[in-house]
């Protein structure tokens, strides 16, 4: 009797590890160790936690942008730069048109929306043509569009002196300060500050709003259809669903969320980064959602939240803690290995069907 009992316990632990995934467990343990170590090596824990929360707010929506496409079976959205570009267009046009303060943030969202819809539809149409090879092509669509926009940032007739190069008077700068525009507008809204510990309530609420929107959408008829398309496209087709249309919708949603995500990122970061900056922005978002427990064709809001916290926690904690422990700042390298390793892990899982 004893033996069977221990066996079941062992099985249960094993089952838990299997369902959670070994790499995820290691990452969570690593982060936990960092938090425990932090006070001992002289890092200020409240500041660290505040930083983590802040970075969570910056990146949360970009990670959320993965969800619709994963749900509809389009795989991980390596084409996120497309959404980011829409966001950047919104941001720059909002400034160009003379909006300032908090208004400029919402104006940017509004202006970014049509771009996101158009780019998203084209992108979705393309992905429908190449079902099965989404991820690789998405990556390169992202790259092409970013490098195309590099030319556009130089050529488009922007005039706002806050954005163009001072000397030539044309062509946008690589970094544009958002001071006086929407820098920190969300974070400072209802901000709670206790000593070194601060909570950017507004930004959290904004993320919560977006996350709730997606959660609610997934509970509607169309959202249900989207999940079914991702789970088994043949089933959905047999049930009369226009698979291509649903996939297209998911791509548009992902693109739009990418646009809003980059705006939220900018408001926290305080700068607009143009040119090559969006190039690799998809990768941290992809690895964050995977760290959160998503797979190539399954993702939930919980995955987004857990993943972003874990990922950004590591990003904020490693430099300080590592520096203090071994006097080597290995945080960048650790981040690369962790995040890329996570993506690789997800890609090699056999159970996740043959989407790629």
């Amino acid at each position, binding site marked *: 009797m004893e033996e069977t009992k221990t066996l079941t316990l062992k099985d249960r632990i094993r089952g838990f590890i299997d369902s959670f995934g070994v790499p995820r467990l290691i990452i969570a343990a690593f982060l936990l160790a960092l938090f425990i170590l932090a006070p001992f090596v002289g890092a200020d824990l409240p500041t660290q936690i505040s930083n983590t929360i802040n970075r969570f707010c910056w990146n949360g929506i970009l990670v959320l942008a993965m969800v619709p496409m994963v749900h509809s079976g389009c795989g991980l959205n390596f084409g996120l730069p497309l959404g980011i570009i829409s966001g950047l267009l919104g941001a720059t046009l909002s400034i160009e048109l003379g909006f300032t303060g908090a208004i400029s943030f919402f104006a940017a969202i509004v202006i970014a929306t049509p771009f996101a819809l158009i780019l998203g539809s084209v992108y979705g149409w393309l992905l429908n043509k190449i079902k099965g090879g989404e991820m690789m092509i998405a990556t390169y669509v992202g790259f092409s569009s970013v490098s195309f926009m590099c030319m556009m940032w130089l050529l488009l007739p922007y005039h706002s002196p806050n954005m163009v190069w001072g000397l030539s008077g044309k062509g946008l700068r690589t970094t544009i300060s958002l001071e006086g525009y929407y820098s920190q507008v969300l974070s400072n809204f209802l901000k709670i500050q206790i000593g070194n510990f601060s909570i950017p309530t507004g930004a959290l609420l904004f993320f919560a709003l977006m996350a709730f929107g997606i959660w609610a959408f997934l509970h509607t008829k169309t959202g249900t259809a989207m999940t079914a398309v991702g789970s088994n496209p043949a089933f959905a087709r047999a049930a009369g669903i226009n698979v291509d249309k649903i996939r297209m919708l998911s791509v548009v949603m992902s693109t739009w969320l990418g646009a809003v995500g980059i705006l939220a990122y900018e408001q926290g970061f305080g700068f607009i980064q143009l040119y*090559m900056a969006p190039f690799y922005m998809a*990768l*941290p978002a992809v690895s964050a959602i995977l760290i959160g427990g998503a797979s190539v064709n399954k993702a939930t809001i919980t995955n987004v939240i857990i993943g972003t916290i874990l990922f950004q926690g590591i990003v904020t904690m490693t430099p300080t803690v590592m520096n203090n422990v071994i006097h080597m700042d290995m945080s960048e390298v650790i981040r690369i290995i962790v*995040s890329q390793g996570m993506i690789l892990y997800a890609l090699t899982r056999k159970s996740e069907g043959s989407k790629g």
Partner: protein
Amino acid sequence: MKTKMTKRMLLFRCGTILVLLLIAGLMFLIGRGHTVYFDNKKAEYNGQTIETPYRIDVYVNDERVGKLSSGDRGMASWMGQNFKMRLEITKEKGGKKQIANVALKLPYNMDGIILNLPAMLAGLPEDAYLSEFIPAPVEVTEEDNEVVTDEFGLEGLEEGMEESAGE
């Protein structure tokens, strides 16, 4: 039969690895590079002072690497230990050129080697004219530390582009 084949193959494989290692060792010998510095400076040896000629032209591989007036230093890279050079010595200004072909063995462990040419030409022993060049520990000020800046340590995209584009 199968085992015999693999044994034979193993032998061949070990042979190949050995050959590669041998080549690698050979490369260590013939490829060892040295930086040779030529001094046209006064030398002191056992109390005797050797005067410098007016000018020495140093040719390495038929290429002039130094045109050394008195007190000058020149340098050249050399691969391997058997160093050869041709010196064209002008004793006085306007004087006739004297040609000397010099061959000497460079010590394997020294990266930089200073040759005091007047001392060497005077036929002094090796330790009189050959010394190791030890670079002064210069404070490097260049910003070399910050390597990875981008989110993913993948900065240098444009740099990479430039590079592939070439010179």
